[in-house]
């Protein structure tokens, strides 16, 4: 019998969880645990096991508690898992609560001085003398703090059966080129492994065996994916103001732009990335740059969107293109800056005073973060309007496995822009004349020679020739045209993803909820005999598939990570005659949604 087959048989007998468990590491923010956590995550990934890593971090530079959750799952369930199977307690401040929240039968590794083993008798405690191990493995006392966390990686590797070769590879990857740091961390991990080998009795509850489910995949965060989307979309002006959790998006873009949008000889760039004084000014730059013909963007989060809303209303009404990425965090107000939420569905859909609707894209994976950001620039220029890419902290900053992105072959769509030559031919051009009947008018770009393209852009009432107008008929026909233009986008925005099972019980979700929905649907069938149909919304305006789905179902569970069921409200606005079918399934405690949330709420509705 092969070693793997023998482990499998043993697992059968002892209820071993093979490649299916969650680890949580509790540390102090700023203690350098991020490297250790990423090494642990990556080593599992390298062993061919689907994983996700979620960093539950505080709004703080150093000193407050932080937790890192790793989920490994052979079936590819990568949503957050509520139950923790292996807890690593490194933070004295939270250690007691960290132990008390566990389910019976969990395993706990704790820093020996914390003396947690008296807290309860139904979990498996292992006291690890981290300081002693690190002192023996690292000759320089001042570096102990930096590598101490790597010891638990070694201990966990030994307990779970993670190949130390993969740990070493992951350390090398994580600390690229820093030879001394690589060596120190490798030694610390090995010391942890060796200590566990001698002191921790072999356990058969949690087990890792090599698989091939991550072959050809990579680990990424959504902010990087969005930055790449913008890079390939040829963004030429990016204006921003730092705000968690969006800052790393523009910082990544700046890194890529430095390498790939800078002339190596002259040092000149084909992109301006400018940090503004606030989000109001960032939005102003996007509007001005889009108006003057650039592919312009910003990235922000909820408080930034609130500040930008006046300019966004102007861009909508004056018809200036621009891309606004909202990496949503928990609001209202400052809220929880480092926690995830889908609470900006309402504000992005209707950002501004007065009557507005905006084109919004809701990516649900790394590939979609990339593709939709790329596409947002085309949509913004085609429809001459602000376009939102709505992600969230979970997508933007956490670790997701993904296929490598395919190169976007499509040519950039610059929309209806009149050239000097075209202007010469036209007798009666009006900036806001809807000659094609699709609500999209032909625009000109400042600087076009010939003397015929100039016009006046304004946030006040205007007629088809861009002249100031207070005439009721001008106002109404213009605002109606804008709605027609918006609704017209439903033919080109990403259609929903459908998984029909022939039931009358539907689930609608979007964005980062997707993995939890997939897992919950399987469990609803397996354990509750509740098969469901599934539609994942990917854009506003809603397309005909959304309407058809609502029509076909008797009941539709709308899954959202906010309190008020904001997407369900939009669905009610668009399809009032279907409103009675909608049920809110909500998760809004600031953690990422779990499959259990759906199962609990849907089974309660079905009773």
């Amino acid at each position: 019998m092969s070693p793997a087959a023998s482990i499998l048989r043993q697992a059968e007998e002892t209820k071993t969880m093979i490649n299916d468990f969650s680890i949580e590491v509790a540390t102090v923010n700023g203690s350098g645990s991020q490297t250790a956590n990423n090494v642990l995550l990556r080593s599992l990934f390298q062993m061919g096991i689907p994983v996700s890593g979620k960093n539950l971090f505080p709004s703080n530079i150093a000193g407050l508690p932080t937790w890192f959750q790793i989920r490994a799952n052979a079936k590819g369930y990568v949503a957050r898992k509520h139950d923790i199977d292996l807890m690593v307690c490194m933070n004295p401040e939270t250690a007691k609560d960290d132990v008390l929240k566990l389910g019976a039968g969990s395993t706990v590794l704790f820093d020996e001085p914390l003396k947690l083993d008296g807290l309860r008798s139904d979990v498996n405690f292992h006291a690890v003398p981290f300081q002693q191990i690190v002192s023996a493995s690292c000759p320089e006392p001042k570096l102990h703090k930096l590598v101490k966390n790597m010891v638990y990686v070694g201990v966990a590797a030994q307990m779970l059966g993670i190949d130390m070769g993969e740990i070493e590879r992951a350390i090398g990857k994580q600390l690229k080129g820093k030879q001394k740091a690589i060596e120190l961390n490798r030694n610390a991990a090995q010391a942890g492994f060796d200590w566990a080998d001698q002191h921790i009795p072999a356990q058969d509850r949690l087990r890792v065996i090599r698989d091939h489910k991550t072959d050809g995949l990579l680990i990424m965060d959504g902010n990087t994916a969005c930055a790449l989307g913008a890079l390939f979309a040829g963004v030429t002006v990016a204006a921003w103001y730092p705000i968690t959790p969006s800052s790393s998006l523009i910082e990544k873009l700046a890194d890529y732009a430095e390498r790939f949008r800078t002339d190596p000889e002259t040092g000149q760039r084909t992109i301006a990335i400018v940090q503004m004084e606030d989000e109001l000014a960032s939005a102003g730059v996007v509007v001005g740059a889009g108006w003057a013909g650039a592919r312009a963007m910003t990235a922000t989060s909820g408080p930034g969107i609130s500040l930008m809303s006046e300019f966004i209303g102007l861009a909508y009404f004056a018809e200036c293109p621009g891309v606004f990425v909202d990496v949503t965090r928990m609001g209202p107000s400052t809220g929880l800056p480092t926690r995830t939420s889908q609470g900006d569905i309402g504000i992005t859909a209707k950002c501004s005073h007065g009557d507005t609707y905006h084109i919004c894209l809701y990516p649900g994976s790394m590939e979609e973060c990339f593709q939709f950001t790329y596409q947002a620039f085309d949509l913004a220029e085609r429809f001459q309007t602000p376009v939102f890419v709505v992600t969230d902290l979970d997508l933007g900053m956490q670790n997701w496995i993904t296929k490598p992105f395919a190169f976007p072959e499509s040519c950039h769509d610059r929309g209806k822009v009149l050239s000097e030559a075209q202007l010469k031919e036209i007798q009666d051009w009006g900036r806001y004349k809807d000659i094609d009947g699709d609500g999209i008018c032909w625009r000109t770009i400042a600087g076009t020679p010939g003397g015929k393209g100039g016009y006046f852009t304004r946030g006040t009432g205007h007629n088809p020739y861009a002249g100031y107008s207070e005439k009721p008929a001008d106002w109404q026909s213009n605002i109606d045209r804008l709605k027609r233009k918006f609704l017209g986008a439903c033919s080109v925005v990403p259609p929903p993803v459908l998984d029909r099972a022939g039931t009358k019980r539907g689930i609608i979700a979007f964005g980062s909820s997707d993995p939890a929905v997939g897992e919950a649907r399987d469990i609803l069938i397996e354990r509750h005999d509740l098969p469901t149909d599934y539609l994942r919304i990917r854009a506003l305006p809603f397309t005909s598939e959304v309407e058809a789905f609502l029509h076909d179902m008797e009941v539709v569970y709308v899954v959202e990570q906010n309190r008020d069921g904001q997407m369900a409200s939009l669905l009610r606005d668009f399809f009032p005659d279907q409103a009675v079918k909608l049920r809110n399934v909500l998760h809004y405690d600031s953690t990422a949604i779990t499959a259990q949330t759906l199962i609990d709420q849907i089974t309660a509705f079905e009773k």
Partner: protein
Amino acid sequence: MTDATVPTNKLGLTKQDYVGAKSTLCAGCGHDAITSQIIQSAWEMGIEPHRVAKLSGIGCSSKTPTYFLSQAWGFNSVHGRAASVCTGATLANRQLVNIIASGDGDSMSIGMGQLVHMIRRNVPVVYILEDNGVYGLTKGQFSATADVGSALKHGSVNEIPPLDPCTLAMELGCGFVARSFSGNPKQLGTLLKAAFTHRGTALIDVISPCVTWNNHEGSTKSYKTLKDKEMPIHELGFVPYYELGSVEMAPGEVREVEFPDGSRVTFRSTREDYDPRDLYGAHRAIHEARDRGEFLTGLLYVQPDKPTIHDFMYLVDEPVANLPQARVKPGPEVLRTCMEELM
């Protein structure tokens, strides 16, 4: 064909090519006099109308871009924040000639932050602050430049000290700071021509009486008061680079400042020894004049060769808005590299 009797500029355009729609401001409004000088100076300078972006915020002053250069691109944006729109426009197309028409209500309250940061970044723009000390369009409330002791039409007196856009801009390092008076068209026209030559932010605070809400007895910004208190610091001359050979420089007490394109501003001091290249001296002279109840007009401070936002951004020479896809969309090999790095 242009009528031979109608004068034309170096582009062969007549002054009529630089006008805009008819003003809808009150008859006698100082802002209309400013508009006339914008038209005159843009025409004299031979600025190509299609290269002009004329931006504004909200208020009476912000309506004025409609009244000049109808062939240019106008943008009446949000209150006080044409500065950021202009920043975006210049990043998109660095070949644009930018004009912002703003007011004291627009720039010195909600727009203060954006003006300050625009100056920091040295965005190329002629920023004309049409300053009358009141909110005209909302019917005569005090603005942040209202002088202490100035009375509203209905009698209430301002007790809160005013902000001075010029000393503020100087403090911020603005390379071209001027003050003028809408009742002094010759000086204003010369300042505008020099401002069009400046590479970065040129701020011109133009005191411009509001004939409807702030032109009464008791107002410190009425035509009458201003005519009494205005003290030009010098007689200004402007010689564009393309006329250098044909103009004879006046001898005597004339100073000059040369701009990067070769154009020159000449000064003949009319009071004391005001040197607009001396930041400390300029500050002192302005403050002393204010204490005497006078307001100094002219080119208060100039430093023409500061780096601009385009230098800070290391942008390519051509407008990024016009770059073909091949120059802004990296190829498949770049995506492959990015993916491999993450493997």
